[in-house]
């Protein structure tokens, strides 16, 4: 508590962690290249340097606010320092912006523009380093790295994976996996959160855009796509829609124009997942075996569990993820009713997620030796395709998702936000169609915002103890607590990305504050307007279970570890 003077104006502060936050709250967007509020403070870029009443200079992100401070943020000297810092950084940066994956969307580029860097007085000293393409999810381009350490702290502080670190010292400092290994040889789970915080093009999405364009151009193919719930409330950001706006129907139209013959809604796959997962939970509750049941729809979480906590593998649900269930159903449908023109089905999934690129390659994601889903494109990659075609979502017509899988429930839709899977499963535990009861679920705690939330749900005379966890550091803590006996649950939902898939590693990054609430609220809003609330009310599911899935539920909807 207290007040200070910032650039001549008195501002109050309460519990802000550092002077930088007070300055920003006062409306001055001081440039930074190493500050991410959720991460620990690192203090490397020095761009946030300010001057106090005694003429002392300090990095404002590293100093606690004190009552009575008098801070200057824009003296001629400070302005010069900021520009020189950027000049220095750019002198050692591989700055071929025109061919960089981050061009136009790069924080470093943007700051250079904002600070008016028009000329670099220093000699170019950039070093070329090998690009690491070993991961199925992300690409590391170390010559674009400015050593801000954001990825290192994300992977450690928030994700508890610790795949990245600093190596070397002085001018030879590098950010790299320990022992200079390739990313594929580390514990990296592919969540892409490092890419979300990277201010440059040093960490990018492993793109399969060219492969998909080729598939679309080949007349021997019939290319279909499914679109995950989280994509529709994020993709509009890049086309000038307000943050969180659900643009699914426009997106379907535009994707048809790109050449996707049918565009389906992954929420249908989520409906299948909820159905299977609620059955599985009921069975495990009845038998008391392998409790708590852990969700398995987030592939980064599944990898994390396998790599860091293998003793919990039996607790993982055997359900495939919504994407994989849908992929298997599409493939089986195609085998049963082959295309009249004899074309080959190419199945593409549009996902908010980089880890899904790895999931489709796992042995259990294949049937008869063929991948169920051929390509995963992240939201960012789809934006690139739309833009390169010369299309836009603005003004596009509104098409509905294609049949025969076009009917989905609200339960399948809210999967995109952390807590959604749990809420959807619990809806199936409510007998009948009582809207009040379904509504009351929202208030048991499943929709809170913290990364670990626990609550109890009463069902048929017993308490179901559930937890909703997002962020892998949180997952790590919960698993340790369960192992040590401090906590016991019946059902735990785990999502690797803090906030769930709407904040996935393949989503567009906002330069103006977190889009989390806007995206989440938009999904819940759409759910309110959906006729079908529970997956068990989806008439299409009944038909599917009576036909295609009859006797094949296990084969098509559960993880088949043999890959046959």
């Amino acid at each position: 508590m207290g007040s200070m003077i910032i650039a001549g104006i008195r501002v109050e502060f309460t519990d802000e962690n550092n002077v930088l936050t007070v300055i920003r709250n006062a409306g001055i967007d001081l440039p930074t290249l190493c500050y991410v509020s959720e991460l620990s403070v690192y203090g490397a870029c020095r761009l946030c340097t300010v001057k106090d009443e005694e003429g002392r200079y300090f990095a404002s992100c590293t100093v606690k606010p004190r009552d009575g401070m008098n801070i200057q943020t824009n003296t001629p000297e400070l302005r010069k320092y900021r520009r020189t810092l950027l000049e220095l950084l750019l002198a050692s940066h591989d700055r071929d912006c025109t061919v960089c994956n981050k061009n136009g969307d790069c924080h470093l580029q943007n700051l250079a523009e904002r600070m008016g860097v028009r000329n670099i007085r220093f000699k170019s000293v950039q070093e070329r380093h090998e690009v690491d393409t070993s991961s199925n999810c992300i690409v590391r381009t170390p010559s674009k790295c400015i050593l801000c350490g954001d990825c290192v702290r994300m992977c450690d502080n928030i994700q508890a994976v610790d795949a990245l670190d600093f190596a070397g010292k002085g001018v030879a400092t590098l950010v790299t996996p320990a022992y200079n290994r390739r990313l594929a040889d580390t514990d990296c789970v592919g969540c892409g959160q490092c890419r979300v915080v990277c201010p440059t093009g040093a960490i990018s999405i492993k793109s399969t855009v060219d492969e998909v364009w080729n598939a679309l151009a080949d007349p021997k193919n019939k290319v279909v796509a499914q679109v995950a719930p989280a994509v529709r409330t994020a993709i509009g950001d890049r086309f000038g829609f307000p943050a969180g706006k659900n643009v699914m129907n426009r997106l379907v139209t535009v994707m048809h124009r790109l050449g996707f013959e049918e565009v389906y809604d992954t929420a249908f796959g989520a409906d299948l997942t909820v159905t299977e997962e609620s059955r599985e939970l009921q069975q495990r509750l009845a038998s008391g075996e392998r409790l708590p049941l852990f969700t398995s729809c987030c592939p980064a979480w599944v990898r994390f569990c396998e790599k860091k906590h293998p003793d919990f593998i039996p607790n993982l649900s055997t359900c495939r993820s919504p994407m994989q269930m849908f992929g298997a159903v599409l493939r089986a449908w195609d085998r049963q009713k082959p295309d009249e023109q004899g074309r080959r089905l190419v199945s593409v999934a549009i996902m908010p997620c980089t880890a899904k690129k790895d999931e489709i390659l796992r042995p259990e994601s294949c049937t008869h030796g063929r991948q169920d889903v051929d390509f995963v494109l992240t939201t960012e990659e789809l934006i690139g395709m739309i833009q390169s075609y010369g299309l836009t979502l603005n003004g596009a017509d509104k098409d509905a998702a294609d049949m025969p899988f076009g009917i989905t429930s609200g339960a399948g839709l809210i999967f995109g936000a952390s807590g959604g899977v749990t809420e959807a499963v619990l809806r199936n535990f409510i007998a009948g169609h009582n809207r009040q009861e379904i509504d009351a679920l929202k208030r048991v705690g499943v929709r809170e915002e913290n990364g670990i939330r626990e609550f109890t749900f009463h069902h048929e005379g017993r308490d179901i103890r559930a937890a909703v966890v997002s962020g892998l550091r949180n997952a790590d803590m919960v698993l340790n607590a369960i192992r040590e006996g401090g906590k016991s649950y019946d059902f735990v939902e785990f999502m690797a990305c803090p906030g769930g898939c709407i904040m996935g590693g393949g989503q567009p990054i906002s330069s103006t504050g977190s889009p989390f609430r806007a995206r989440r609220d938009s999904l819940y809003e759409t759910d309110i307007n959906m006729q079908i609330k529970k997956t068990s009310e989806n008439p299409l599911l009944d038909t599917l279970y009576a036909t295609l899935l009859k006797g094949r539920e296990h084969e098509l909807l559960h993880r088949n570890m043999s890959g046959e």
Partner: protein
Amino acid sequence: MEKSPETQKALTVLEKFTSDQCCGKCISCREGTRQMQQILSDSPSPFPSEEELALISELGALIDHTARCGLGKSIARQVVSVLEHQGGEERVIEEYLPGPYQELIFFDIDPHRCKGCSKCARNCPVDAISGVIKQPFVINHELCIKCGTCMMNCKFGAISIKD
């Protein structure tokens, strides 16, 4: 091109610093000292020109005011003062920045040089130095945040950077 003794001294200091002592964290220190070195070695004459010197001292001020620890600051000052022939003038460090310390280097007091005057201990912002007057003082490395204040204050040159 044969460099003048001052230039050569500055280059030697920078060479050791950029490859060995700098922890590589702050842009100003890491890239600033690298460019100082670059400017000096690229200079076509034994002495840096007016212009080159101006750029180096601009970098010196930048590092002095924005680098995190006393190590970077003291190197920058040393280079600028060698080049400006400003030896002998005592300068006092104006600030220190709290924060996690870096592990690669540490400050140490040479017991043979230390006269036990306690000036370092009185100036240490985190009270990491203790000792008895007229006997060698010692730095507690657990507490030390590597700000470099002690080194800047020691009149006997007893404190130096080790790695």
